[in-house]
């Protein structure tokens, strides 16, 4: 990290934060502090942040908001109000389900030749599923949403989070793989006998044009969908073809909410 980059990463400093200091920010602070010519720059922005935080100090959630939230949660749905039900995500999902599946089908058909840097590494990960039995998996009994914390406690893997869409899947087994010396968490989950792969995208040079967008590829009788959010790489794999994956992804909460 050079001095210019350190100045930029300094912008992510937040004093008295309840979160641990990010290693990149910590490094930036050390670099800036080691350069006397940047000391006044650092001090200026620290002073500015103090002023902002001081101005924000009196801003606390009013009781009226807490009361309104409680009231909102206590409201029962009105019977017979079809408009209210019609716009519920679940109902919209049913109405547009077929259209979505068709849409995903067309989309993935058009992107069959979809390729991205790091695809080779993703294919290598998937080959583990094709060539191994389940004997190497450590049995777990947790929701997938809890696995991020579990991986941190068990292996010290920070930010190995499962996307919110999969939080309610049930994790039944887990195994830590080492690929090219980098960690990959392999999680077997239900329903659907799916496998989740969680990794740091940067470790494998996985970069995609559109963060958060699924990239689907087929390998023999397996299909995988990969997405990258920040540095978090996530891949879900199952037996089947692109159509099966399109239907699977279309059922996810975020897809149904669209």
């Amino acid at each position: 990290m050079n001095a210019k980059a350190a100045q930029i990463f300094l912008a992510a400093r937040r004093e008295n934060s309840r979160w641990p200091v990010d290693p990149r920010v910590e490094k930036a602070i050390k670099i800036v502090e080691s350069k006397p010519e940047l000391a006044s720059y650092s001090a200026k922005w620290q002073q500015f942040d103090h002023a902002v935080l001081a101005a924000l100090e009196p801003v606390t959630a009013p009781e009226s908001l807490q009361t309104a939230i409680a009231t909102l949660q206590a409201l029962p749905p009105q019977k017979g109000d079809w408009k209210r039900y019609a716009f519920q995500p679940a109902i919209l999902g049913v109405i547009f389900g077929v259209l979505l599946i068709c849409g995903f089908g067309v989309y993935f058909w058009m992107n069959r030749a979809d390729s991205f840097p790091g695809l080779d590494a993703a294919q290598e990960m998937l080959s583990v599923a094709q060539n191994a039995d389940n004997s190497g998996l450590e049995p777990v009994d947790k929701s997938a949403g809890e696995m991020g914390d579990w991986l941190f406690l068990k292996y010290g893997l920070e930010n190995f989070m499962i996307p919110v869409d999969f939080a309610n899947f049930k994790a039944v087994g887990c195994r830590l793989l080492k690929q090219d010396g980098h960690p990959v968490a392999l999680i077997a989950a239900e329903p659907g006998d799916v496998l989740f792969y969680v990794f740091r995208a940067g470790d494998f040079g996985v970069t995609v044009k559109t963060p958060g967008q699924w990239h689907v590829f087929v390998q023999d009788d397996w299909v995988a969908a990969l997405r990258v959010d920040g540095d978090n790489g996530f891949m879900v794999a199952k037996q089947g073809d692109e159509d099966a994956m399109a239907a699977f992804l279309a059922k996810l909460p975020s897809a149904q909410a669209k």
Partner: protein
Amino acid sequence: MQTTDLSTETLNGLYRFATLLFGRRESATEAILSALRQCGTQLEQIRREKHSLAFLVRTLRDLRIKMVEEPSTTPLEPTEALAAAFSQLVEPGRTALALLYADLFPFAEIASLLHISVDEVAEALDGARHALAAKWNPGEPTPPISQP
């Protein structure tokens, strides 16, 4: 998630975030309630508070992006002046800096939440901080913020 389960610290953070985004405390309250109504049953399906919070934050950000801005016409007290100036920053710096100041998520997760890289979020934070400093000076009187 039952939103009433949010800790006071988190609820205050969410309220500060919304105040900075929407420029006024009254608007923040309305926006949070509106976001909760929009999220509806989906929030109940999400188990982890952090994930629910991320869902709410995204919804608030979407609401702010769709909002039609109204210029302020009355002199503002310091906090309102800060919020009004903040509200006029551009995305994604506005949301990123508001999340940082509200202390709702660690730095790396802000990048993840905004679907941009950590390098990009650092640049956005740097740009937003400079833009905010140009609009809001804590040491000077606080005239009404005019629309850009």
